[in-house]
C-alpha cells in the first residue's frame, strides 16, 4: 500500500546526509570530547564545528549554543534555569504553548513563581500589547513560542522582543516548529533564549539546543561534569550533535526553497479538501501560519475516526500534538482559541514535509472524501445539520 506521511510537525525523517554523518561519527569519531587525546580532540572538533553550524543558522555566536537532549529539555532549562537562578520573580507565557513550557510553568508555579498565562484570539495569537500590559516590576522572563505546533499560528516575536528589551525582561521563544520553516534570527527577534529540536528539522531525535544570549546566566537542570560551560552535564552526544549541526545548516541553506515547497503542498491539500469536501474549517491564522501546517475540522465527524480511516489507507496525520494524541483531553490550543470543550478534539492536523509530493497530496484527496462521507453518513449531527454557521468548527446540537 502507498504510504504518505503527513505528520512532520510530530517528527521528521532524518535527512540522508544527516544520517550518514551520524553513522560515521558513531563508528569513527567515537572519542569523548572531554578527553585530551586525539580521539577526544577529534570528537571535540566535530562538536564545535556543529556548534558553529547551529549558531550560524540562527545568527548567534557558537558560545551561545548549549546542546541538550531535545526541545523539552531546552524549554525546561530556559524557564527553570532563569527562574531558579533568579530565586523569585514573575513569568509570562501564553495559553497555547507546548506542554514542555506549560507544564514547566505549572511546576514553577508550585514552587512559588507567579505565572501569567496570556489568552489568545480565535487564531491563536497574542499581541505585543498583551505582553506589555502583563509585565510587572517582578517579571523575570517572558516565554512565547515562535509558531504553534498544532495550528501553525505565528506569534509576533520581534515586536514582543522589542518590548521585553525595553522593559529589561528576558524573552524565551520556543522555535522548535519554526526552525527550517521561518527565518530564525536571534538578533532581529531580540530574544535572549531560543529552543531548537533536531528531530523536527530532519535531524536526529534526542538532541536539541538552547540559544542563551551572551551574559544570560542559567541555573543548570542537572549536576555532573562541567560540560557545555557548566550549563548541561553529561557526555555529549557527539553523533547527534553533529547531525543537528548538519540539519541546521541544511535548514537554513534550503529555507526559501523548502518554505515554498511546503506552502505549495499544503495549499494543494487545503484547496483540494475544500473543493471536494464541504463543511471544512481551517483552524489557526489564515495567513500568519507555518507553511507546512493545515489544521482542519471536518464538521459533523470526530477527529480520531478520520485519523483511523486515513491510517487504514496508509496516511499518517494527527489530531493536535503527537504527545496528546494518545490521551483523550481535547487540545488546550483549540480550547484557548475558543472552540467548545467537547468538540476541540475534532480537528485533524496535516503537516507536509520536504519530501511530500503532489502525488502524495492527490492520493489523500482521492482517499479522504469517501472516508469523510462514510463517517458523516453515520453521524447523527450530519443527519440533523442546520445550514452552515460560519466560523464555528462543528455545530453543536442542543
Amino acid at each position, binding site marked *: 500500500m502507498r504510504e504518505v506521511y503527513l505528520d512532520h510537525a510530530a517528527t521528521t525523517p532524518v535527512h540522508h546526509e544527516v544520517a550518514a554523518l551520524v553513522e560515521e561519527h558513531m563508528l569513527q569519531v567515537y572519542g569523548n570530547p572531554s578527553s585530551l587525546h586525539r580521539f577526544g580532540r577529534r570528537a571535540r572538533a566535530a562538536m564545535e564545528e556543529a556548534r558553529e553550524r547551529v549558531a550560524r543558522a540562527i545568527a548567534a555566536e557558537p558560545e551561545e549554543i548549549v546542546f541538550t537532549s531535545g526541545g523539552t529539555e531546552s524549554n525546561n532549562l530556559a524557564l527553570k534555569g532563569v527562574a531558579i537562578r533568579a530565586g523569585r520573580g514573575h513569568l509570562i507565557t501564553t495559553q497555547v504553548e507546548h506542554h514542555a513550557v506549560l507544564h514547566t510553568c505549572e511546576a514553577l508555579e508550585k514552587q512559588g513563581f507567579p505565572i501569567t498565562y496570556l489568552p489568545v484570539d480565535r487564531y491563536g495569537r497574542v499581541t505585543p500589547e498583551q505582553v506589555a500590559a502583563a509585565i510587572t516590576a517582578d517579571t523575570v522572563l517572558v516565554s512565547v513560542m515562535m509558531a504553534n505546533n498544532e495550528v501553525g499560528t505565528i506569534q509576533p516575536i520581534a515586536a514582543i522582543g522589542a518590548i521585553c528589551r525595553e522593559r529589561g525582561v528576558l524573552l524565551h521563544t520556543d522555535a522548535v516548529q519554526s526552525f527550517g520553516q521561518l527565518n530564525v534570527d536571534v538578533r532581529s527577534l531580540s530574544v535572549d533564549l531560543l529552543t531548537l529540536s533536531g528531530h523536527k528539522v530532519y535531524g536526529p531525535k534526542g538532541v536539541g539546543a538552547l540559544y542563551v544570549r551572551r551574559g544570560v546566566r542559567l541555573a543548570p537542570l542537572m549536576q555532573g561534569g562541567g560540560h557545555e560551560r557548566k550549563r548541561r552535564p553529561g557526555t555529549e552526544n557527539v553523533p547527534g550533535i553533529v547531525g543537528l549541526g548538519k540539519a541546521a545548516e541544511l535548514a537554513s541553506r534550503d529555507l526559501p526553497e523548502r518554505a515554498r515547497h511546503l506552502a505549495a503542498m499544503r495549499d494543494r491539500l487545503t484547496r483540494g479538501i475544500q473543493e471536494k469536501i464541504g463543511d471544512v474549517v481551517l483552524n489557526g491564522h489564515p495567513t500568519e501560519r507555518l507553511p507546512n501546517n493545515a489544521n482542519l475540522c471536518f464538521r459533523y465527524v470526530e477527529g480520531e*475516526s478520520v485519523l483511523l480511516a486515513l491510517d487504514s489507507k496508509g496516511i499518517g496525520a494527527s489530531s493536535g500534538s503527537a504527545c496528546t494524541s494518545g490521551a483523550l483531553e481535547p487540545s488546550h490550543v483549540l480550547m484557548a482559541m475558543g472552540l467548545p470543550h467537547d468538540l476541540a478534539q475534532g480537528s485533524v492536523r496535516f503537516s507536509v514535509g520536504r519530501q511530500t509530493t503532489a502525488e502524495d497530496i492527490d492520493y489523500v484527496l482521492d482517499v479522504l472524501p469517501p472516508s469523510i462521507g462514510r463517517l458523516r453518513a453515520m453521524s447523527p449531527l450530519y443527519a440533523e445539520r442546520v445550514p452552515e454557521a460560519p466560523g464555528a468548527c462543528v455545530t453543536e*446540537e442542543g
Partner: protein
Amino acid sequence: MGESQVYNDKVMEHFFNPRNVGELEEPDGVGRVGNPVCGDIMKMEIKVSDGRIRDIKFMTFGCGAAIATSSIVTELVKGKTIEEAMEVTNHTVAQALGGLPAPKMHCSNLAADALHRAIENYRSRQNRT
C-alpha cells in the same frame, strides 16, 4: 507486539464495517446519549415486538471506540428480549470487542447506555398508550 494498533482487530473490523448503521422508519424507542467530555454522541433506535428487539439501528458521532461499540451492541441485542438487552452493560460491550484501550473504557463506551435509553423510551411509550 509488532506494529500493533491502538485498537484490536475486532474493534477495527467494527469500525470499518459497522453493523446496523442508520435510522429506522418508525422506531418504537429512541435513545440518545452524549458525553460532554469527549463530545461523542450516539443515537440508538429499536423496533420491538413480542418483547423482543426485532430491529436496531445506530448513528454515532465519535471516535473509533464509539463507533465500534455502537456497532457491536446492535449485533449483541438484535433478536434478544428487552430484559436480556437491559442486562447488556458497557462492560459486556467492551468484552465482546475483546477489550478497549484503558482511556477509552469510560469515555467512548456509551453504546449500552444509548440502548438502555432506547428501551426506556420504548417502555415509557408503552405506558403512555
